[in-house]
């Protein structure tokens, strides 16, 4: 099979650049995904034909308004909540920022204690850190070796002045899925509100905000084959929350800024498409993922990170001892494989991922992490290719490593 990468010329046209690689395998769907054809065709008219402002009185504006409201209804249906609770944002990061800052600001007179976990995405973790500087007291719950949060730990940490608990539905690095319904019940029993960052979960596992009983939930379109730059914060009716973005009073005064209609329409189309094939796609990806895991665990001194079964269908994450993650990625790139790592060297901070440290991996082992995340385009042949290439890459790097005595 001919494979290729794309390069852009000065006029931003893409041209195919052929490489001598047998295959191109995009295994970084937890980073971002290809826009689905359905989402793209749903969006296109909103860029060039129905470009009115939804806040405008005339019919041309109201046409855009109705597309936006249809999108809101479609998202609400996927999450099993009333559409009044759906607020469009610029993405998952904004949704997470808003949930934490907005609820804290609205409730700080009642209490200033916030609970989160040691494995949250930076969009939650750094916002919690910011709030700590604003006077909040933040408790970070630990996780077990598989990355699971214990409801008992939450019960023990919660206090009368706890105003918000924020726990992610599924982790972006190790794929571990949390028992959100149980955790939300613990928070509610103590009178605290519950937010979940469902950015990695939405479109991949059933996300029923009503059944989970969450007060707030974040998602991001580009993680499920929707466009970048658009997300959602679901806010249950009656939840106290202040805006973080002020302006023209769009989204019922809660999130100002002229609405990204094309983005919202694309998000709704992609989420609807994902929800429609969720069970079949989860089963297909789980089979591919487990074949990949079984195959790569044949590599000596390798281990799976995260939970063996309570994990995202498309996410396989590993550590390989005595090799370093960035080197692995560069070698894989040379084979036409796109993957990611939590290694220090891939970050500006030079610290390995907080998630890998939180599950108890020592620094030296956390440096050798690799995440392979599958998506709608991943095929069995892609898995064959990964299984064919990765063991050789690890062996080559180990041959060069002074730590490897194998």
């Amino acid at each position, binding site marked *: 099979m001919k494979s290729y990468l794309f390069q852009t010329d000065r006029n931003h046209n893409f041209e195919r650049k052929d490489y001598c690689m047998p295959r191109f395998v995009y295994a970084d769907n937890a980073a971002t995904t290809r826009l689905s054809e359905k989402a793209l065709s749903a969006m296109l008219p909103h860029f060039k034909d129905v470009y009115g402002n939804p806040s405008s009185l005339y019919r041309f504006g109201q046409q855009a308004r109705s597309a936006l409201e249809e999108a809101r209804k479609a998202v609400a249906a996927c999450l099993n909540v009333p559409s009044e609770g759906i607020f469009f944002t610029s993405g998952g990061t904004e949704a997470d920022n808003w949930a934490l800052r907005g609820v804290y600001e609205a409730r700080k007179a009642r209490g200033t204690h916030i609970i989160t976990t040691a494995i949250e995405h930076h969009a939650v973790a750094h916002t919690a850190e910011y709030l700590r500087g604003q006077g909040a007291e933040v408790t970070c719950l630990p996780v077990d070796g598989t990355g699971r949060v214990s409801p008992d730990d939450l019960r023990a940490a919660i206090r009368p002045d706890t105003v918000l608990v924020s726990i992610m539905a599924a982790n972006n690095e190790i794929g571990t899925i949390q028992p959100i319904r149980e955790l939300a019940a613990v928070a509610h029993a103590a009178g605290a509100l519950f937010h979940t960052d469902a950015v990695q979960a939405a479109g991949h596992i059933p996300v029923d905000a009503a059944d989970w009983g969450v007060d707030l939930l974040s998602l991001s379109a580009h993680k499920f084959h929707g466009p970048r730059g658009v997300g959602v914060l679901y806010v249950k009716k009656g939840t106290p929350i202040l805006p973080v973005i002020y302006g023209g009073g769009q989204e019922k005064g809660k999130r100002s800024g002229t609405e990204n209609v094309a983005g919202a329409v694309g998000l709704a189309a992609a989420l609807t498409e994902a929800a429609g094939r969720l069970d079949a796609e989860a089963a297909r990806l789980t089979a591919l993922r487990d074949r990949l895991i079984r195959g790569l665990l044949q590599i000596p001194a390798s281990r799976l990170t995260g939970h063996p079964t309570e994990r995202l269908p498309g996410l396989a994450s590993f550590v390989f001892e*005595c*090799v*370093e993650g*960035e*080197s692995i990625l*560069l070698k894989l790139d*040379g084979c036409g494989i796109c993957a990611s790592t939590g*290694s*220090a*060297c*891939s970050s*500006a901070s*030079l610290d*390995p991922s907080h998630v890998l440290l939180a599950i108890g991996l*020592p*620094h*030296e082992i956390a*440096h050798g992490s690799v995440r392979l995340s599958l998506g709608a385009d991943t095929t069995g042949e892609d898995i064959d290719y990964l299984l064919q290439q990765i063991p050789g890459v690890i062996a080559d790097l180990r*041959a*060069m*490593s*002074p*730590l*490897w005595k194998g």
Partner: protein
Amino acid sequence: MYSDKVMDHFSNPRNVGEVEHANAVGQVGNPKCGDIMKMTMRIENDVIVDVKFKTFGCGAAVATSSMATEMVKGKTVAEALALTNSAVAEALDGLPPQKLHCSVLAEEAIKSALADYYSRQGIDPVPIVGCSPDCDACGREH
């Protein structure tokens, strides 16, 4: 992110392995930080006749190791001692700022091997090579 030269030295590293009958061995870095470089050399008549490296680390760590071995091979000990981290980085057409420490490690690995060369002959390396980068192992006050 990396120059073509860095990628060339990462993809086709020069002088990988361990020199047999080495009379100069140095290792710097630590696994916790995610970089370890080990240099082995055969020095005859004050000339580095052979040098090889083994590195655990990122692309820049491998490339700087490879380039550093190329830059000291066939050189006298005095010439090798004059190798600086910036010369290694320059020879690779530059490194991203957060990766400059890799070139420092490469310079230290060469110096650590040369310090070992002097120690084996009963010569205190510190006045010649400078302070060992491994402060814990050195024990000197300064």
